[in-house]
């Protein structure tokens, strides 16, 4: 009897935690289709006017365009840098050097975001990079690098190095071996790293709040400032679109990692 009671309590906690984790995110979707002007949940009537509002509002559209542009550039830069670094780490004969470099590459994950933000803001003000596209891409790239390095390192961990030896024994140079043998095999790791890099940039708030300018505002910054100013369901429409986009990308990234593991 008490065993059953314990089991019920256990599952009750599980359900509570699951609700706590998932429910808030799901609230946003129905809210974005409300016909009311206020953020009352649950909505009583339905409309798509807030989406129409989003796509006709130049501030939101500019923010969306900026976020997409920065995100894509960050994904490209961080993936190239991170893949090269992860490959170098896995092949470097000096294991101690590689371990130190690895800690270094993952450090942006550990240092609190606000500290990075203040430092980057100071340097960017001096170099007049604050509010520039290059500044956003550089700052987000640093935050995205750890995710690419982790993802590609995991892919390289399951990669059979003898394939490279085989290619080399057949006369392929280092670059040809990498392009024709290694890269195709670690591609799922590289792509999931790129997706995570994009999402990291697309979702970044704290550093962006500091280095934003009236001419360059990203979507999370636009959301942040409208949350503090107004309660307009356009926010819910924006949130739903961010939610759908990031969920699709991350699920894609995770599915790629899962396929990699199964292949092993």
């Amino acid at each position, binding site marked *: 009897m008490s*065993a059953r009671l*314990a089991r019920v*309590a*256990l599952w009750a*906690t599980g359900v509570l*935690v699951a609700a*706590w*984790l*998932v429910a808030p*995110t799901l*609230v*946003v979707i129905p*809210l974005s289709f409300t016909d009311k002007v206020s*953020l*009352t949940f649950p909505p009583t009537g339905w409309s798509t006017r807030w989406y129409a509002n989003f796509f006709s509002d130049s501030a939101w559209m500019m923010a969306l365009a900026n976020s997409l542009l920065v995100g894509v550039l960050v994904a490209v830069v961080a993936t190239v*840098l991170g893949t090269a*670094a992860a490959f*170098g*780490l896995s*092949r470097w*004969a*000096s294991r*101690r*050097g590689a371990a*130190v*470099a690895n800690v*270094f*590459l993952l*450090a*942006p994950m*550990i*240092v*609190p975001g*606000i*500290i*990075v933000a*203040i*430092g*980057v*803001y*100071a340097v960017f003000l001096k170099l007049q990079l604050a509010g520039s596209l290059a500044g956003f891409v550089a*700052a987000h790239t640093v935050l995205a*690098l750890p995710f690419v*390095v982790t993802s590609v390192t995991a892919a390289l961990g399951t990669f059979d190095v003898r394939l490279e030896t085989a290619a080399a024994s057949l006369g392929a140079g280092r670059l040809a071996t990498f392009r024709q043998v290694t890269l195709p095999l670690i591609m799922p790791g590289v792509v999931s790293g790129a997706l995570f890099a994009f*999402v990291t940039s697309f*979702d970044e*708030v*704290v550093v962006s*709040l*500091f280095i934003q300018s009236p001419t360059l505002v990203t979507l999370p910054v636009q*959301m*942040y400032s409208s*949350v503090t100013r107004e309660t307009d369901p356009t*926010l*819910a429409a924006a*949130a739903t679109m*961010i*939610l759908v986009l*990031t*969920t699709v990308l991350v699920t894609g990234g995770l599915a790629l990692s899962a396929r990699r593991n199964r292949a092993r």
Partner: protein
Amino acid sequence: MAALLSPVAPGGQARTAPTPSGRSGWLARHWPFLLIVPALLVLLAVFVYPVAQTFVSAFTTPNPGMENFSWFFGSSANVAVLTRTFSTALWSTLICLALAYPYAYLMTVASPRARAALLLIVMLPFWTSLMVRTFAWLVLLQDTGVINGFLGLFGVGPFGLVRSQVGVLVGMVQILMPFMVLPLYSVMSGIDRRLLTAAQSLGARPIVALARIFVPLSLPGVAAGSTMVFITSLGFYVTPALLGSPSEALISQFMYTQVSGMLMWGRGGAMAVVLFATTLLLMGLLGLAMRAGRRRKVGAR
């Protein structure tokens, strides 16, 4: 710490260069290092240098000396911000632990399918937008929101959940939960459950077996998860800024106002030093505890 602050990648050239055959020998052995260099240079320029400069500014701006620290620790309002940051971190850690422990335990005893679902539920919010989640909590916790509406059915409330410490904790716990569940689960899934059966066959009641066998073995997960949650919560900005009360700021918000609003770089730097030193100290303590635990385990064998 040295690894994070030193401007050169340590061990790069200096430590690992005892190749007698000169330049080409170095290249043959260390060519992969060249592939890491571009990433390290970007990190150096946009992460290490800015962060180091922030720390330096604490001691140099506007005047050399400790004035920023004496400003920070000299005012009881500022110390209250620090205390509040720590107490918020402690509360989020305790709530996360209380909820995540049974959740992770459930994962270890559930069927493979239920386990996969429970894992997915933990991972999904991990990757949903921070702004979206914070906005959602704002909607749920507002005075006319779902939670107050639900409580109203029982005749309680409405409570001022938003713009309060409660709102901050509710939002933070949701964000931090994966950092607690995942280490707990990884430790718990490695515990040999036959030990529990053995204890019960020797006459221990299930609850006693759990408390005296399972819980002690799960402590490394508790330590790792708690440290991760505590450290991460110290640096939170968005959640407390949007869900909390402006009069009960945490250290990140305080840093934001000092730097972005008043351009007090030195003060921001001083708080950054305090925050970072605390983070490193806690991580160091965790590392020591882990190592001691491992040694004890090896010794027991």
